[in-house]
């Protein structure tokens, strides 16, 4: 999950959904003029990447976008949000969901001309997992056998004075290079969804140059293997990218040069877009959404997509007041999501009605019965739960635009259930997350979830399984844990999805969080661009652009 780091729109809640199949892509079907495209150049909006561009160390959208363009992984996620397909992988085979044999396509190139071999994957993953390297996405490799040997835990947490011991090994025992084009991955436990995860940027291969230059130098001049090649990076000003002519895995870029101009303010970018000085903006500013001003400004160059991201309000279940599932369900049922979608978001975000993004493989649309609006039922449940004593505070981070919808939710709960509810902002995302991570929240709080990879597993394991990486409310249901474990070790994805569906049914009864809305994205492009598609997470697909 990546997080947006623009100052003005601040930390959007991240999460990305698959696009609605119909509205996902091209605004002009007929395409562009191949001649104009061939050496065409565009300028698009971006934000300054926070760190050097190293795939396993990037968790924010500014750098993440560029990494997504510059690399092609073993599998890739189709733009329409459907199930992943092999990209660099020739085949990924397993009989028991534990040992995977990965064959990669022969003779594909990195941008520096070296060949992508099996060891480029194995070395890259070992580097990401090795804890002294401190990769932000290091925990993604935890599925692999031998992870605990290379990634030692701090005995008293990062806050404590004790230091994590030096890992015993530098390489995970579960990774084994068979020959130049084949490697074997042994997992610590059966994981049916593992091949799906391989399209996430953390799992990208790294060229030998990475290990000779070191991460810091490499991050300033990254070398990938994707359709887009890095040219230069002027901090806070722009990044220049160009077509990789030796790319052989999929469509090459049709245009030649791309300048990612770094904007500090999305309104400035929007004004450039409207006046024809910018070719693409992924999210137009909130100020242009009111009264559909952006549609009037941009006409048929406006792209509305229902991008994959859920806004949720979580319960701190470690707080005794919130342990009763009936109370949690009552609160959820008292929220009129449709009204919030219409009045606060002008329809740009849709009312949530399922636990996972509906287009995610394995997800079931409409499976959140707790997401209905039913005041009678809510009142009944609240009475059965014995009411709610005292003040119910709903927290949000005040450095992003969450105030309006959080206050609307609090008001609805107050009106419909007669609970003394109110919304309160915490000054910054950092303070907010610090309290959440430390399990010190004194009320409900907003959260957001963006899938890292398109599978329902990503909407269950991290959020609702005991010890899950983002199960911040400490929800724990042994039955859910057991079902999720069974699902993970299922022999194939269909069986896994069936088990996850059972787990979700239990989650739906427990209501550990309240899904409120599915995010939308409003993008715009210039007159110059004749054909354009967005990826499953709403980023620009540079290979699709025609002029």
């Amino acid at each position, binding site marked *: 999950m*990546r997080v947006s780091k623009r100052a003005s729109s601040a930390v959007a809640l991240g999460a990305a959904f698959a696009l609605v199949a119909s509205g996902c892509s091209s605004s002009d079907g007929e395409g562009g003029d191949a001649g104009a495209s061939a050496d065409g150049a565009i300028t698009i909006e971006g934000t300054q990447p926070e760190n050097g561009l190293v795939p396993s160390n990037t968790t924010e959208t500014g750098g993440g976008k560029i990494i997504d363009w510059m690399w092609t992984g073993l599998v890739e996620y189709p733009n329409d949000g459907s199930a992943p397909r092999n990209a660099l992988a020739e085949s990924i085979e397993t009989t028991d969901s534990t040992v995977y044999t990965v064959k990669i396509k022969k003779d594909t190139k990195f941008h520096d001309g070296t060949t992508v071999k099996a060891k480029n994957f194995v070395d890259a993953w070992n580097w990401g997992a090795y804890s002294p390297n401190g*990769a932000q996405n290091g925990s993604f490799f935890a599925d692999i056998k031998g992870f605990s040997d290379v990634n030692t835990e701090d005995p008293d947490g990062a806050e404590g004075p004790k230091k994590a011991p030096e890992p015993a090994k530098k390489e995970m025992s579960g990774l084994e290079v068979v020959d130049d084009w084949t490697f074997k991955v042994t997992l610590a436990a059966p994981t049916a969804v593992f091949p799906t995860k391989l399209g996430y940027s953390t799992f990208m291969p790294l060229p030998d140059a990475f290990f000779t230059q070191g991460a810091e130098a490499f991050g300033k001049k990254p070398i990938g293997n994707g359709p887009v090649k890095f040219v230069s990076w002027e901090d806070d000003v722009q990044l220049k990218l160009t077509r990789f002519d030796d790319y052989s895995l999929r469509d090459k870029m049709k245009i030649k040069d791309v300048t990612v101009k770094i904007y500090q303010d999305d309104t400035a970018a929007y004004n450039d877009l409207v006046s024809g000085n910018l070719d693409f903006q992924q999210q137009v500013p909130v100020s242009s959404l009111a009264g559909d001003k952006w549609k009037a400004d941009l006409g048929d160059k406006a792209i509305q997509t229902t991008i994959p991201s859920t806004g949720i309000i979580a319960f701190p279940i470690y707080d005794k007041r919130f342990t009763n599932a009936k109370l949690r369900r009552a609160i959820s049922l008292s929220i009129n999501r449709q009204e919030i979608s219409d009045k606060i978001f002008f329809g740009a975000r849709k009312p949530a009605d399922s636990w996972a993004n509906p287009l995610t493989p394995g997800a079931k649309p409409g499976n959140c019965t707790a997401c209905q609006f039913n005041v009678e039922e809510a009142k009944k449940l609240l009475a059965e739960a014995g009411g709610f004593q005292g003040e119910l505070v709903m927290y949000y981070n005040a450095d992003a635009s969450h105030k309006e919808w959080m206050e609307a939710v609090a008001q609805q709960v107050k009106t419909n259930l007669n609970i003394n509810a109110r919304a309160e902002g915490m000054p910054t995302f950092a303070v907010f997350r610090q309290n959440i991570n430390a399990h010190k929240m004194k009320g409900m709080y907003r959260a957001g979830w963006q899938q890292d990879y398109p599978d329902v597993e990503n909407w269950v394991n991290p959020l609702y399984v005991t010890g899950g990486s983002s199960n911040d409310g400490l929800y724990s249901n042994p039955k859910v844990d057991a079902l999720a474990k069974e699902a993970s070790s299922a022999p194939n994805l269909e069986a896994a999805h069936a088990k996850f569906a059972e787990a979700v049914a239990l989650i739906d009864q427990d209501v550990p969080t309240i899904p409120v809305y599915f995010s939308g994205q409003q993008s715009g492009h210039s007159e110059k661009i004749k054909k354009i598609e967005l990826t499953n997470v709403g980023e620009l697909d540079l290979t699709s652009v025609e002029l």
Partner: protein
Amino acid sequence: MGRYLLRRLLQLIPVFIGTTFLIYWLVWSVPGDPFAGKCGERACPDAYVNMMTEKFKLDQSIWVQYGNYMQNLFQGDFGSTFGGRPIGDIIATSYPNTLKLAMVALIIEAVIGLTAGVLTGLRRNGFLDNLVLVSTLFLLALPIFVIGFVLQWLFGVQWGIVKPTVSNEMRISELILPGFVLGSASMAYIARVARTSIAENRRADYVRTAIAKGLPMRRVVGVHLLRNSLIPVVTLLGTDLGALMGGAIVTEGIFQINGIGRQVFRAIVTKESATVVSIVVVLVLVYLLMNLLVDLLYAALDPRIRYE
């Protein structure tokens, strides 16, 4: 004069140390763990937090952190951001841009403000006087971001006279609009101060003498009256350069200028004390030196003022 200058320069040292420490301490006391929100809705792995904590010595006391920072500073090393970028680089690229913008703003406000002030000061209560009075009131009443957005929309989007944002080359012609926006509030102040000062000195004895001895009006106003009336205006302009640079964050954001404003803002949010202090320290120096310059200018403007 030389001794005065030396004394003033020596005074800069405690001020310098005091401000750097205060700023360091302020940023250090901003609540929030710098790595708590770094990885989005999921906590960063301990390994990452540990590595960064160690690298930036964040587990040490503020005294040790500040001591380290100052030690490196005297060796010419500003340190680096959490993202690994040398702060020296940031200063080298962003300061010239902000300075350029502030200078353009300063020139615009000085020229327009002074002209308006002199004209209205000489002819009080006329049509022009009332016009300036009303328009300055208008400028003062509007927040700078309103002026910025409105002018950007009108000139950049609606009429297409200029590009809505400033290009990377930072051409002077592109900076006129943002410079006007940035300097608009001060422009109003300068016009009003100059007007009052001119109007007051208009009745002074030396002006009457000058007129009585038959000097042409141009000389009376240009040499005698203006020179003596300039002291408050120079004070205002001198301290304004620092204020313009520090206050440019809004204008820089609207017009997409790669200046210090966004760097400071980003660094405060991410709790990068070293970055904030390094940038602000240079700003403090600008303030101090401009103040000194203004004091020295007094002597040039008014021969009665001497420094020992």
